[in-house]
């Protein structure tokens, strides 16, 4: 029972750990498809990949509502984010600035998150998608800003039809959500500007 109530540690050195993690996030979103290491040796709460936890600790605070799947929200992950980030955990996906989605879960649809408005496309949700692995899955070819030519990625553990949803998201550009695929200590950025060429 104690495990549920005990909140784990956050950053031991907030200034430099968050700086290093941010640079990995910036590199991930500016060069979509490249795997970036966020950090090593970080104990995340149950249900969150270490990279997901670090990304939220780096970016989220009382200004950014977070959406979590119901089981995570009720568990230690929710308590951990409330305590360390001071963030509100919201029930509606469209209200969130950040969201965590397990790759295999069938709901909510990516279109349920906020795509921003035409005058303020920056007011959209950034969704962290937790995968089983960032390699070894279905191969997908990407193109767009940040990619010289084409780039192939093959993350594993994503729900069927996921890439169709990502392609539909990219088609709404400049509106749309920004995705960060995470597993272990590593992330892959998939901003809305990235086009999905083919999924096979």
């Amino acid at each position: 029972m104690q495990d549920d109530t005990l909140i784990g540690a956050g950053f031991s050195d907030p200034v430099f750990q968050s700086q290093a993690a941010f640079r990995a996030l910036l590199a991930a979103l500016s060069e979509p498809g490249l795997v970036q290491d966020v950090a090593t040796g970080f104990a995340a709460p149950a249900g969150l990949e270490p990279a997901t936890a670090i990304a939220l600790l780096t970016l989220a605070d009382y200004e950014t509502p977070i959406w979590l799947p119901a089981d995570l929200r009720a568990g230690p992950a929710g308590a951990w984010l409330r305590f360390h980030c001071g963030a509100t955990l919201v029930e509606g996906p469209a209200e969130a600035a950040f969201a965590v989605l397990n790759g295999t879960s069938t709901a909510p649809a990516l279109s349920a998150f906020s795509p921003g408005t035409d005058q303020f496309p920056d007011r959209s949700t950034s969704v962290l998608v937790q995968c089983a692995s960032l390699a070894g899955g279905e191969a997908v070819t990407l193109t767009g800003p940040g990619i010289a030519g084409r780039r192939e990625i093959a993350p594993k553990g994503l729900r069927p039809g996921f890439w169709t949803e990502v392609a539909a998201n990219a088609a709404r550009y400049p509106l749309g959500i920004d995705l960060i695929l995470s597993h272990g200590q590593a992330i892959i950025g998939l901003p809305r500007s990235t086009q999905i060429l083919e999924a096979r």
Partner: protein
Amino acid sequence: MTLHQIIPGEDTKPAYNYAYLDEQTKRMIRRALLKAVAVPGYQVPFGSREMPLARGWGTGGIQITAAIIGPDDVLKVIDQGADDTTNAVSIRRFFERTADAKTSEATDEATIIQTRHRIPEAPLKAGQIMVYQVPQPEPLRKLEPRETETRKMHAWAEYGLMQVKLYENIARFGEVTTTYDYPVDVNGRYVMAPSPIPKFDNPKMHMSPSLQLFGAGREKRIYAVPPYTSVRSLDFEDHPFRIQSWNEPCGLCGATDSYLDEVITDDRGGRMFVCSDSHHCETRRADGHRGAMLADASALHLVDDKQAKDKVSKS
């Protein structure tokens, strides 16, 4: 408490946070940067802070640099291409003091290059980050003063007004007379102000391997161009975009392919053209390139001419 929060020689009270800004402000700027990168060319509003420098002196660029810089970074700061002008020196010193930053004047050593009004002549590399100081982030502002209207124009990609302005330029003067802050189309969607760089530098932004971040402190906007992103200078099929060219090479290093500043040398009409990128010019001179006026400038102790000195010491 960590060591970086203590100024040596002071008592143990923390003076200010690493890189001056508090962590809450850095998070806000970092979130804006990630959205800016995801929508290239779109201006993200951000809560610009008071800095220990007047607005208009590069506070937007400073806040971006403060939000991204870390202990592994090497910072280069240029103002009009030069590393040794007031703005560049004081910003470099600001980060040496607040972030204990490693600084360099060499373009290829730097990981972060903060710039006012130039892009270095040496080609940029993957992994480098350009940080531009921007006075006016809105390319349409001179055509439409209301922010509520320009925001709609960007939202609906209504850029006809900008084309009309360029057309009227051509109709009246025979060419587009804009020579700096020349508007560009980013990723085929947003029209963006490239900051007051000469149009000579516009082609360097297209498909650049480096990440380009733009900060406007007074106007409270951040925008970005990721690496390998299309940046097209606006033009017409029958009036294609052209960059500046000069009739003579750099007076100091003889370069014919760099952006030149005209320098008045006396009150009898004497003048010379020199590279605006001081590090590029120095590197070329060190490699043995000599311009027509290098000997004269060296005699007046305006520049260091190593070859001339070597000759003197030998004789």
